[in-house]
């Protein structure tokens, strides 16, 4: 059995179960030495990075906890909206979310750091089709089956809709049928396995998937690339005190200077974390304004 397939299957079950049952939290082990510290730092994780990597998340949480001198509790949800809700309601202190929900709520969220991938805090949205497909672009997918990743995703929802709207199409009628896969990796899987004719995915996730699941990622072909957008950032919620935010930022910015931190970054296929300003997400904000103008800026 292919490890990927089992994970995807379990992910499906987890996603279904998660809707009804209590949140599944990945709690990092408390550091073995040192006195008991303050209330744990709650960090939300979405499928903007690879999912289902419990072992990695445990290690990263432990590393963060050690450097922050506090317990770090990692909370994972399949849907962006759940993480954003938890963050806005103060149930999470900080979260790794997409740029799109960030610009939607930027008045209540504060940027902590943004990952650097291939030297830059940037990524793209990509339109993928099966390798054997004849489609040469998004326009060839008219009346086809299409997979969105998440209605709060920039690369897997906002950008392709913006693109269609820009070319005078109604994104809700352009495709015959669309589905949500609730994750970029699953969108790749949906296209690779022929469930849909195309999908819009995060270029970082797709390329990282090439390292972990080369067969799956090799079954799809990129037919369109968006301009570069700001990479999904790590943001602090209203409950995160400024000193704590600053402390977290320092630790994250220094992660690539630490050997263990570098190994963790390498595992994520990232170079490190950088400081960012909200200007990085100006393009996304402009698209969001265009697509759902009623949303507060």
């Amino acid at each position, binding site marked *: *059995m*292919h490890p990927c*397939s*089992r994970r*995807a*299957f379990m*992910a*499906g*079950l987890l*996603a*279904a179960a998660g809707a009804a049952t209590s949140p599944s939290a990945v709690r990092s082990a408390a550091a073995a030495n040192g006195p008991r510290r303050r209330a744990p730092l709650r960090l939300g994780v979405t499928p903007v990075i690879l999912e289902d990597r419990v072992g990695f998340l445990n290690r990263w949480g432990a590393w963060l906890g050690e450097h922050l001198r506090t317990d770090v509790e990692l909370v994972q949800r399949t849907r962006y909206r759940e993480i954003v809700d938890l963050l806005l309601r103060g149930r999470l202190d900080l979260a790794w979310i997409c740029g799109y929900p960030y610009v939607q709520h930027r008045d209540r969220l504060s940027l902590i750091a943004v990952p650097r991938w291939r030297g830059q805090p940037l990524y793209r949205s990509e339109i993928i089709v099966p390798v054997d497909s004849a489609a040469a672009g998004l326009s060839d997918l008219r009346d086809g*089956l299409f997979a969105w990743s998440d209605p709060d995703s920039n690369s897997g929802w906002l950008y392709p809709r913006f693109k269609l709207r820009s070319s005078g199409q109604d994104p809700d009628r352009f495709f*015959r*049928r669309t*589905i*949500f*896969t*609730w994750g970029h990796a*699953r969108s790749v899987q*949906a296209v690779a*396995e*022929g*469930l*849909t004719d195309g999908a819009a995915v995060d270029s970082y996730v797709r390329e990282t998937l090439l390292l972990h699941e080369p067969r799956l990622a090799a079954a799809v072909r990129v037919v369109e690339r968006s301009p570069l957008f700001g990479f999904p950032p790590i943001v602090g919620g209203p409950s995160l005190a400024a000193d704590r935010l600053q402390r977290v930022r320092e630790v994250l910015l220094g992660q690539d200077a630490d050997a263990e931190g570098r190994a963790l970054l390498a595992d994520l296929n990232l170079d490190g974390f950088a400081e960012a300003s909200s200007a990085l997400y100006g393009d996304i904000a402009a698209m969001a304004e265009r697509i759902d103008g009623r949303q507060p800026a």
Partner: protein
Amino acid sequence: MSRLTSSYRFRLPLALSLTAIVTAVFMAAALGLQSLHNLREDQGRNALRLAHAMSHLLVGALRQDDVWLAYSLLRGPDGADGTLIWIVADADDRVFASNRPRDFRLGQPLREALPLIAEMPPAADPTGTVIEVREADVRRVLHLPLFSENTGVGNLYALLSDEPFLHRFHEVVLGGVAVTAAVLALLLPVGWLSGRRMVTPLVDLAQCMARVGRVDPRDMECRIRTGDDEIGQLGRCFKGMLGALAEKAQLERRVVQTERLAAVGRVAAGVAHEINNPLGGMVMAIDTYRGGGPLDARNRQLLDLLDRGLRQIQSTVSALLVEARADRRTLTRDDFEDVRTLVEPRVNRRGAPLDWHVTLDAATSLPATPVRQLLLNLVLNALSAAGEGGRAVVHVTASDSGLCMLVENTGTPLPPERLDYLFEPFPSSRGDGEGLGLWVCYQIVSQLHGRIDVEAVGAATRVRVDLPLHPEIER
């Protein structure tokens, strides 16, 4: 070929082998079909169990239009490699999810994607059914209606084929064939050999029987098994029959010989009688002529010649006319010693050793003279047949009923064809002597109501004489 197939030597082992092969083939086929049936049943049962397990989540997915959830459920851990094809159709009978997304497109009308659905009975058991269908690669269809509060929200189908376990079935069959072949490889030679073993005595018997009538039963050497089974009984019976045949042949030969010798004896006696009368006259005439006056030398010589010739004829004829003359004196042990003394010079001259064993305690009722002559003739014959370096043995034993004399000599054995004519006068092959010795012996024995036999024992020749002590009682 027909000879081969008609012989039990081939038919029995062939029948044993065929039985083994046919049994093995039928066993393998029965086991294979049974395991195929079991595999199909297991497949249907397992699929139904899985369908029930998934149905709750599938209802939720249908209600919430969560295609991905339904897909990842149906896709299962095996992905598109799974051997079962699962299809969920929504309330409008359109494909909602399948683990073969390329064949069953999202939103496609089910009847278009799967025409055989149209032929299926619509009212299905709410707990799920497995229906046999006859498609090229789909053998059974599982149908489980999906309900939410007694309202149908869709249907779950699974297409079952034999393909997933066909190679297992082939393995079972191949394994059966291999085991059968191995067992047969062991059994067939054993069956073949045991068949041959069973049949070989029959074949030997048949070959032996085929020779009866063509070969003298006394000379027949047959390999015949005499076990306790039926073939053994047959062999014993056949052996008994051969013995009886040999005895009968022996008897017939003896009768023929006796009759022939009796005829020869009558002829000889008649001729001798006819010769003796004129011979006596001629001898008397010569005597008279001699006594008549002086003869010149030439005539005397002539008369002597005639006289010698006539006397030779006379002695030959009288030898033919063996008469066991009435002899008052009965045979005693001394008579045997006399015979020994008489042949002693011959023994010394010939150099052939003579073993002499006489066991005779009292006098017998047999006449002495003919028995003496008989034994003398036999011993002289034996010594002359033994030749240089040979030896002769004499055994005489007496019992209440008779006297048995065995005279045996080594040396050149007699050829079998000569044994039949040995007692006739003037045997043609005889090189020396007058040829009347054994004839005389035979006549004496006949007159004493005895029996004389000659047989070759290895390189030796043995003459056996049995003389009854009370011939009157014997007869």
